[in-house]
């Protein structure tokens, strides 16, 4: 019972923080609200008994990526005054595009009530032992491919960071 209440509370907070990210005028506030939104999503992971995912989510997103975001925004010193003014046409086209996306989402989710989940939910799947077994047995190739992808991104970043590329 309490998990249901928690779910609704976390969902409400997640959506509220996500909206605040969009509506904040100050980019720094947006980043901080995004961090809070990540926290609520980590809370959802904990509710699903996926503690490992929750911890990694916090470490990677809130702890590393958002710090870099904050870093860049602070260094560029972006604020209300320096934000370029958008034209009316841009705003109108953005409104139309996001409105039609909303219609598509509603249309596709309309039939979702009849969908049955293919597997029953296994509460222990998010624990680290099971996750490790799954990753290194069933999904070994995608796991390794994604690690190579990260490695190549790292090499690319180092190359770009070099002062002179011969």
């Amino acid at each position, binding site marked *: 019972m309490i998990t249901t209440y928690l779910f609704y509370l976390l969902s409400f907070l997640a959506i509220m923080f996500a909206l605040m990210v969009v509506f904040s005028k100050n980019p*720094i506030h947006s980043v*901080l609200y995004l*961090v809070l939104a990540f926290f609520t999503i980590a809370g959802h992971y904990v509710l699903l008994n996926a*503690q*490992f995912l929750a*911890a*990694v989510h*916090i*470490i990677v997103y*809130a*702890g*590393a990526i958002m*710090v*870099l975001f*904050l*870093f860049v925004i*602070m*260094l560029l010193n972006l604020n209300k005054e320096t934000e370029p003014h958008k034209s009316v046409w841009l705003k109108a086209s953005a409104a139309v595009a996001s409105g039609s996306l909303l219609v598509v989402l509603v249309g596709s989710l309309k039939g979702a009530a009849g969908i049955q989940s293919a597997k029953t939910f296994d509460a222990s799947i998010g*624990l*680290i032992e099971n996750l490790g077994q799954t990753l290194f047995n069933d999904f070994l190739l995608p796991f390794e491919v994604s690690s190579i992808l990260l490695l190549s991104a790292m090499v690319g970043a180092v190359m770009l960071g070099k002062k002179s590329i011969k």
Partner: protein
Amino acid sequence: MTLDFLIYKIILVLIVFSITLLVATYSTYAERKIAAFLQDRIGPDRAGPFGILQPLADAVKMFMKEEIIPNVSNKALFVLGPGICMLTACMTGVIIPWGKTINIGGTDYPLQIADVNIGILYLFGVLSLGVYGIMIGGWASNNKYSLLGAIRASSQMISYEVAMGISIIALVMTTGTLSTAEIAAQQHGWHWNVLIQPLGCLIFIICAFAETNRAPFDLPECETELVGGYHTEYSSMKLGLFLFSEYINMFISSAVIATFYFGGYNMPLIGRWVHDPNALAILGIVFLFMKIVGFIFFFMWVRWTLPRFRYDQLMNLGWKILIPLSILNLVLTGAWMMRHEIMVYFVK
């Protein structure tokens, strides 16, 4: 989830919290006394016998000072900064196993607040959030020096977290668990992890210095270049909270180093003389605190011995020395663990 359980957990939280604050308070006194000892001075000796009431005098001074919030700063975030610093500093104590289980009236009471099975990851999560307090405070001050200090702090912490994480992965490989209680329990007798992972332990300790912003890694508050670093604009107890959270971090880091690498609450040979489990558990707490005090002394000793790094030296040390070393440690650990398989491969 009975009421007894809840009360016991609340009491444990309160005890750990108050001990953390107490140790941090007296660390400020110890820091002055050790600095004085290393510089051949006397140190504080006016308040009480041997100056033992000095932390109280400092606290009163901090509270009584005028509270200044700069007009142009972002007020909410300016106040939030030190708060986040204190919060993240106090959160880590939850996963540290302070001792073995104490048995009172037939019920077992483990001396750890939360034995989560991802203890190490929790530690890293809280650690990586610690930088927010400094960054928010430094930015909200609306001062160039504060901003530079905050940016230094965050880049330093991110850089050293990498090496720290890789050195911990090697530890996780040898212990086979992410639970701190399990890691402490495995180190009974002479099975201390520092003997299994000496290089990883060294890297972890160096990174712990950088993560706590202690000298020789205290560039975020480098007076000679940045006035006061990220807390230039802070005054009164808000400044006090920033400084105090550094001492809490130092206490918790010492506890983590002791738990991960130096046997935690274990002490070799003690099982030979003491057989009562409750007495052993209480002795375990004493041993853990002896190790913690030792490490706090080590932190201070290093601070008053070594000069501060230059910023490029700091980054070189982090990225070009510590990270390759920790990867080497990881590979060596893996090779050692798979030595039979490798031997079979070559002998065949």
